[in-house]
C-alpha cells in the first residue's frame, strides 16, 4: 500500500505502469483519476486544496485498510494533491489490484466515496474576482450508505 499526499504533480502513466508490476496473481488493475473541472462556461482560475497534515495520511490509510479487509485485494495506491491547481490538472488517483475485476472496481469506488467525505481535504474555487469554499453535497454523504 502506498499513500502520498503531495503538492507536486504526479506522472499518471509512470504510476499506472509500475503499480502492482510483477504481481502475477493479480488479474485486474483499476485506476481512477480525478481532474480539476472548470466551472460551467469557464471562469475557474484555480482550485485551492487545503488539508490537515498528519490526519490526512492516517485517514486515507484507514480507508485503504478497510478496503483491503472488505475485498480480495492486492496492492492499493492513493495519491492526493494539495495546493493551487488549475482546470485540467490531475488532483488525485487511486489504483487497486485484485485477482478479479469486480473486487478491483468495487474497492476503487469505495475508496473514492470515502476519500470524498472522510479524508480531511477542503476545496476553494477561485474565480474572476470571487472565491468560495466548495460545500459538501448530501449525495456524497449518502453514497457512503451503500457500503
Amino acid at each position, binding site marked *: 500500500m502506498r499513500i502520498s499526499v503531495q503538492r507536486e504533480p504526479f506522472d499518471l502513466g509512470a504510476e499506472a505502469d509500475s503499480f502492482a508490476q510483477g504481481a502475477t496473481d493479480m488479474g485486474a488493475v483499476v485506476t481512477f483519476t480525478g481532474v480539476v473541472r472548470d466551472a460551467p462556461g469557464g471562469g475557474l482560475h484555480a482550485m485551492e486544496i487545503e488539508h*490537515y497534515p498528519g490526519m490526512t495520511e*492516517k485517514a486515507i490509510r484507514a480507508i485503504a485498510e478497510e478496503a483491503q479487509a472488505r475485498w480480495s485485494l492486492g496492492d492499493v495506491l492513493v495519491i492526493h494533491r494539495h495546493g493551487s491547481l488549475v482546470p485540467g490538472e490531475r488532483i*488525485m488517483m487511486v489504483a487497486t489490484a485484485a485477482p478479479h475485476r469486480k473486487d478491483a472496481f468495487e474497492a476503487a469506488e469505495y475508496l473514492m466515496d470515502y*476519500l*470524498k467525505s*472522510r479524508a*480531511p481535504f*477542503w476545496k476553494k474555487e477561485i474565480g474572476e474576482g470571487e472565491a468560495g*469554499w466548495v460545500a459538501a453535497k448530501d449525495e456524497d454523504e449518502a453514497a457512503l450508505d451503500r457500503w
Partner: protein
Amino acid sequence: MEVLYFAWVRERIGLPRETVETRAETVLQLIDELRSREARYEAAFADLNALRVALDQELSDFDATLSGVREVAFFPPMTGG
C-alpha cells in the same frame, strides 16, 4: 491544548491554530468558551451542523470528552477526491 481550524473556520477566526488554556471537559464546553471570547468565534461556531470536529486527528462528536486530548480541530464537512 492545541486547537486547529481549517477552511472557512480558519478564515472566520483568522488563525490556523492556537494554544488554548481550558478546563472544558467536553468539545461542547470548549466551543462555548471560545464563542464567549469574541464575535469572530461566535461567527465561526454559530451553526454546529456545518462543522465537524477531530480529536487527536480522529473524527469525533461534539459531546465527546476532552480527557487526555492534546489536539482539537474544527472544520467544515470534507470535500476530498
